[in-house]
């Protein structure tokens, strides 16, 4: 028979295995990014910055990083603005088909990425912007907006409905109320949404591969290197992308769970 203590230990081991399962590949990648050997094998060679050096001096990777950053910044900004507007409409107004409106706003992440990517490619070529950086920004905005909306909506739901009326009552017009009450209240979630949508854009591959053309983003470049030959500099780029994304996600979480000052 199992007693309480053994259940606790079994659960702990289970949790450990889950973490090992999730993080082992990433840890392996990080470890081999500092390994001097050309091929990933044990025992390890000696410690080296060589692969990072190689990446650092590779203009193609730099271009990809620049593209990724520009796209991530623009797309996260646009997605957060759209997400905020959608979340505020939900907070403020009641209207017919509101549920349909919300479902539609939350739709993009539920569409298989390949389908979304194909549709975007077809549509962008029709518009004639396929392969331009704009295409990638728009695509990532579409992908990120639902996340931004969900996060900001969560925050606005915690807001006392009377706060807005109180601001009007104290002489604030609707715009002033937006500026001095709604946005300050939602600010932690806005920052959180910015970080999260930035992370979404930064490591998104499928759509980027379809629509980016010559403006390759980092994940696209990783695949290209991988297709050419097995080179440990992939581990270096991968570690960099992982670190960036995780940092953004952690910041997002910190802001998301800031204590509601009530």
């Amino acid at each position, binding site marked *: 028979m199992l007693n309480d203590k053994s259940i606790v230990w079994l659960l702990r081991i289970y949790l450990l295995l889950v973490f090992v399962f999730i993080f082992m590949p990433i840890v392996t990648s990080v470890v081999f990014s500092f390994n001097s050997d050309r091929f990933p094998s044990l025992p390890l060679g000696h410690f080296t910055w060589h692969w990072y050096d190689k990446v650092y001096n590779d203009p193609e990777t730099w271009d990809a990083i620049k593209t990724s950053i520009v796209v991530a910044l623009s797309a996260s900004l646009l997605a957060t603005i759209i997400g905020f507007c959608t979340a505020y409409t939900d907070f403020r107004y009641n209207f017919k088909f509101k549920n349909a409106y919300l479902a539609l706003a939350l739709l993009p992440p539920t569409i298989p990425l390949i389908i979304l990517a194909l549709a975007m490619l077809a549509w962008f070529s029709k518009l004639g912007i396929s392969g331009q950086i704009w295409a990638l920004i728009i695509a990532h905005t579409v992908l990120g907006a639902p996340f931004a909306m969900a996060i900001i909506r969560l925050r606005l739901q915690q807001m*006392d409905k*009377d*706060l807005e*009326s*109180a*601001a*009007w*009552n*104290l*002489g*604030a*017009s*609707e715009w*002033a109320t937006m500026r*001095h*009450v709604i946005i*300050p*209240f939602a*600010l932690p979630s806005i920052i959180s949404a910015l970080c999260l949508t930035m992370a979404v854009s930064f490591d998104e591959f499928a759509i980027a591969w379809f629509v980016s053309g010559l403006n390759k983003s980092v994940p696209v470049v990783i695949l290209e290197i991988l297709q050419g030959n097995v080179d440990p500099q992939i581990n270096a780029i991968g570690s960099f992308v992982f670190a960036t994304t995780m940092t953004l996600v952690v910041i997002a979480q910190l802001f998301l769970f800031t204590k*509601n*000052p*009530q």
Partner: protein
Amino acid sequence: MSEGQIVLENITKQFGSTVAVQPINFEIKAGEFLAIMGSSGCGKTTTLRMLAGLETPSSGEIRLNGERMNELKAHERETPLVWQTLALFPFLNVIENVEFGLKMRGVEKSERTQRALKWLNRMEIGEFANRSIDQLSGGQRQRVALARALVTEPPVLLLDEPLSALDQNLVVRMQSVLTQLQKELGITFVYVTHSQSEAFAMADRVVIMSEGVIEQIGSPKEIYRNPASRFVAEFVGTNNIISGYIKELNEHIMICNTAFGTIESNLDDANNSHILGGAVDLVISADMIELSQEETSSKNQIQIQFIAEEFTGSVVTLYFEDDKKNELIVQKQQREIEPLELTYGCKIYAHWDPINVFCIPELNAR
């Protein structure tokens, strides 16, 4: 102008198919403390929100100083509200909260701080100016909310059950703060509450609402002594409401047959619509009934049996019934009943003066 500072004329409010406020009419005089009282859903808060411009009346007219203000937006009015939830801005500190109204009116920073501090000091919370809201106690938040509403020096202050979240002892303290503040400032207070004790303790006049209709408007004393309808009589509680039929009627005296036997009442001139044999509801305040061990010569006297008591501080509410199980409520000071040596089941005489028997106007009797 003879008209009151605020006039509500045939105001109604509908939300979809539900009628929140039936046509209501009343005036609020400049500088008076008016309470609007009723149970939840009676339309009192909706009425207040219409005064603040947060709801638009479905029909009728609201006038402030003789000018129609139906179309005036909430932020264009000078009718600050103290909210039931207080609705302080959690992302602003105490003084920033108080400054908010001034900031929206474009008052310059240094003047803003000075005026906000003046009000914080007046509310005796000046030392907390730079604290954040969640570091304050309930009573202190209450004072911040008051300072925030008053800092623009408005002619009218609206209050929506502001004390309902406080502890009972704090409620009593804030009541005296509010009444004193209202007297000193000389501005109009419109105070919505479901609590009879709050309304009666503070207000000059009370409006009693039920299901979107005004049941009675009057001073607390008028309402307590002379309820205009059976609803009001029941709402203010501690009243004995006795139904009966008119047996004898002359110019000043009415004698009714009731479950307690005959009860005599002195008629006031206002209610002259009585007819012999008509149904009436009589009201006898619980504190107007005398108790004695022996029979007296009083015109209204019954023998009753002591069944229960409810002790609330210095006042005791006593429950009696007669031999037909009709209940009678009596309120007395603790020291008054001590000599009577009441024991459960003991018999005693209750009597009251005919001038303390009020008759609810028949038109409103339900």
